Every structure is written in structure tokens, then in C-alpha cells.
């Protein structure tokens, strides 16, 4: 597996973590009503979306490099 393939795997894991953490913080905000929890939740979801966009950009940029 090349660095390209491992990077895709890593970004996928990071996207999953971002959305899960976003949900975790927003769920906490529903109980605590602390603004920091809201910001962390929203920020984490935005990070998840950004990472998806980056992943697509990365795949296009390195389309000529092997996955092996």
C-alpha cells in the first residue's frame, strides 16, 4: 500500500472522527447549554466537510500515482 492509499484511509478515519466528535459535542450542548460545546460541535462538522473536499482534491492531484 502506497502513502497515497494510506493517506486516503487516514482521511476517511479523520472524517469519521470529525462527524462523530461533532455529534458528541452537539449532544453535550443539548444538556449543558455551554457555548463552547456548540462551537466545538459545529467546528468539528465543518472540519469533516473540509476534509472530504480535501480528499477529493488530493485524489485528483495524485491521480497518476499508484495505490501500491
Amino acid at each position, binding site marked *: 500500500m502506497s502513502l497515497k492509499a494510506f*493517506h486516503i484511509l487516514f482521511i476517511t478515519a479523520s472524517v469519521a*472522527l470529525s462527524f462523530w*466528535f461533532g455529534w458528541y459535542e452537539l449532544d453535550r450542548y443539548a444538556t449543558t447549554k455551554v457555548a463552547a460545546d456548540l462551537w466545538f460541535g459545529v467546528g468539528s462538522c465543518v472540519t469533516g466537510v473540509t476534509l472530504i473536499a480535501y480528499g477529493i482534491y488530493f485524489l485528483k492531484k*495524485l491521480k497518476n500515482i499508484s495505490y*501500491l
Partner: protein
Amino acid sequence: MEIPYTVKPRPDTGLYNAKLGIWLFLASEVMLFGGLFSAYILLRVSSDLWPHGMVSIPVGTFNTFVLIASSVTVVMSWASLKLGKLSAFKGYMAATIVCALGFLGVKSFEYYAKFTHYDVWFKDEATAKKYFTAAYGEKGEEATRKLFVERFHLHNTKATYDANQIQLTGHLFGNPMFATLKKLTSAKQETIQFTPDAPFGTHDHPKAIEVKLSDVQRLSAYVPAHSTYFAIYFTITALHGLHVLGGAIVLAYFLFTADHWWKKSPEQMANRVEVGGLFWHFVDLVWIFLFPIIYLL
């Protein structure tokens, strides 16, 4: 003598030798961290009390962000070499090393905060209650119990806890690291100035109280000897931190010898950076699993 298959793939494996080597090494690393993760799960599920909220989520989130950013920069440095852009490689690699140092700096700050934070257990219930009142006033036992309940997630349990099971948490005067009851008594000290933590949900620390060491059964900083929780916490995070440090040293070597290797063999240099990048991604992936289990769950 020239080392074979540093650039071209070996016919029988289809990979250049260093790539096969790093994957074999990473397989052993998976077993190492897998064993530690398993130990963490088993210790946690078999424990009656497991603390929560002992580490700062914002700090952990920041470090997670730093490591994700470093993965992006390390892969970009490799891609730059593949595209023949040496100066771009240097910029991305330097950014990766800055991220690694940032991560380690924040982790050191976290460790320092743990090494200077103390729990004190008292010899009996009456003595414990006396100090709880001294720390938090008339409702001292209630305030200390609340901190204890929140730390151990005991909201839904009907179990009751003796006052001398509950620790008073806070800081010693002068913020010494690694102090223990044995060290303090052998230094002929009879009392300590102790600033208790703020009551749950507030940030107002009570005034420091004087604690007689003859009333103390145990005193411990948040170090591995404190509890099973801190033992496994420090084992896993310190091992991970050492991997970050090792990876940063190797990546810095690639950066500082870039000109030499670029002249000698650009393809081999790109392969070396790829191997370093694979290790770096593994270290970051470990953190992606560590962050939720240590900071969130």
C-alpha cells in the same frame, strides 16, 4: 556496493525493499498498540470506578487537529518530490516538523499539569469531613462528594461512599512535581498548604488550607502510581509521544539532507520520504483512536 531495490520494485514482491520493510515494522507496531488498547479496555471494564474528565477536551482536540494537519503536509511533501518541486518539499516538511513539535509541546504542558495536581486521602472519615469543611465551608462534604460523583460517573448508582474514600483534589503550595507522603515526611515537613479544586461547575478555587501530614493516609500526584487509570494513560500516551518524537527526528533528517539526496538520487529520496510518511500516518492513526477513548468516552 549498491543496495538493491531501493528504487525499482523487487520482482517477487512487487515493492521496493524499504516499503516492504516499513509494512512489516508497522505490523509489529499494530500488535504493540493493539495489546495496549486491549489492556485499556479490559482494565476499564473490570474496574469498579473509572474516572472521567481528567484530561482537557479542548487541548486534546487541538492536538488532534495538529496531527491531522501534519499528515496533510507530510503527504504534500512527498507529492512535491514526485512532481519535482524540491523547495515545496522543504516547506511542507518544515511545516510537518513544526506540527510535531507543537504536539509534543502541548503534551508536555498536559503532563506538567498532571504532575502538579494532587489527590489526598485521609486517615479516617471524621478527619476527612473536617478537611472538607475547611476547604469548602459548611457544605464541604457535599461539594467534595459532588466532585467525586462527577469524576467517576456515579450519578445513577445507589451505592454510598464513605467520606474517607473520597479524595480532596487540588494543588500543593509551590506546585512541586511528584511529591509523595513519604518524601514530604522524610523532609521533616509536618504540614502542607493545599489549594483545593473549584467546586463542580465553577472556576472559583477556595483559599488554601493547612493539612497536617499526620492526618493524611496517602498523597499522590497524577502520576502512573496514582491509579490504574493514570498508569495506562501515561503508558499509552507516552509511548505514542515517543513515536511522534522518533518520527519527527527522521523527518527532520530528510529535510536537512534534502539537497544532498536530491542531487544523488531523487527517486530514492522520494521513496525514503514515502516510507517516513507511512510511519507518520500510522502514528497519527493511532492518535485518531486514542483521542476518543482517552478524552471523550
